[in-house]
């Protein structure tokens, strides 16, 4: 069964540094998402992306965050200047249509900011 893959599985970064989290969605999917889960808290929506542009973003997704689909397979989340509170598990998801098909998730990247 096709999977969403995320790399790296764990990223340790110094505060203030830029970080890029990478995702390869399922190949025929058109809608892409990032969510995050701070330790002990619930999963929160960050951003959705369709047709090479952001379709919705949450209040968490401020100017420090950006997303990109640089080629036909990758979907990236960049945090420009990381803060301690960015430490979380970040999940990528994708789905192939708007007819109530479920979103498929990757295993996540654990981001630790020191």
């Amino acid at each position, binding site marked *: 069964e096709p999977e*969403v893959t*995320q790399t790296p599985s764990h990223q340790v970064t110094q505060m203030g540094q830029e970080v890029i989290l990478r995702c390869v969605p399922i190949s025929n999917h058109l*809608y892409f*998402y990032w*969510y995050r889960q701070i330790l002990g*808290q*619930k*999963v*929160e*929506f960050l951003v*959705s992306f*369709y047709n090479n542009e952001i379709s*919705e973003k*949450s209040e968490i997704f401020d100017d420090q965050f950006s997303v990109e689909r640089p080629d036909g397979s990758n979907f990236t989340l960049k945090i420009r200047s990381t803060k301690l509170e960015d430490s979380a598990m970040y*999940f990528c*998801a994708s*789905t192939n*249509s*708007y*007819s*109530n*098909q*479920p*979103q*498929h*998730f*990757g*295993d*996540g990247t654990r981001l630790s900011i020191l």
Partner: protein
Amino acid sequence: AQSVTQLDSHVSVSEGTPVLLRCNYSSSYSPSLFWYVQHPNKGLQLLLKYTSAATLVKGINGFEAEFKKSETSFHLTKPSAHMSDAAEYFCVVTPTGFQKLVFGTGTRLLVSP
């Protein structure tokens, strides 16, 4: 706006006994509802989905859930728990499948021998 409330943060059962994980939703119109499971250090796996077809939904690994509009509930059940069911379970709502998912706070299921 959509939201879900998972009524129990932890549920403990013995292996072989039934499982009930409770979820109530709030939605201004007919929602899509999902249950996802997260095993330790793993991603979110879809267990089952409700999208306005049959109100009793069967999922993977013997789980099922019943959509009850009158009670705004979507409880997850399994007749007989297995040790491998120990995980975190999330009830999720969305107006449509391609829009943002709104997660509940999760229920940790503990299964003892």
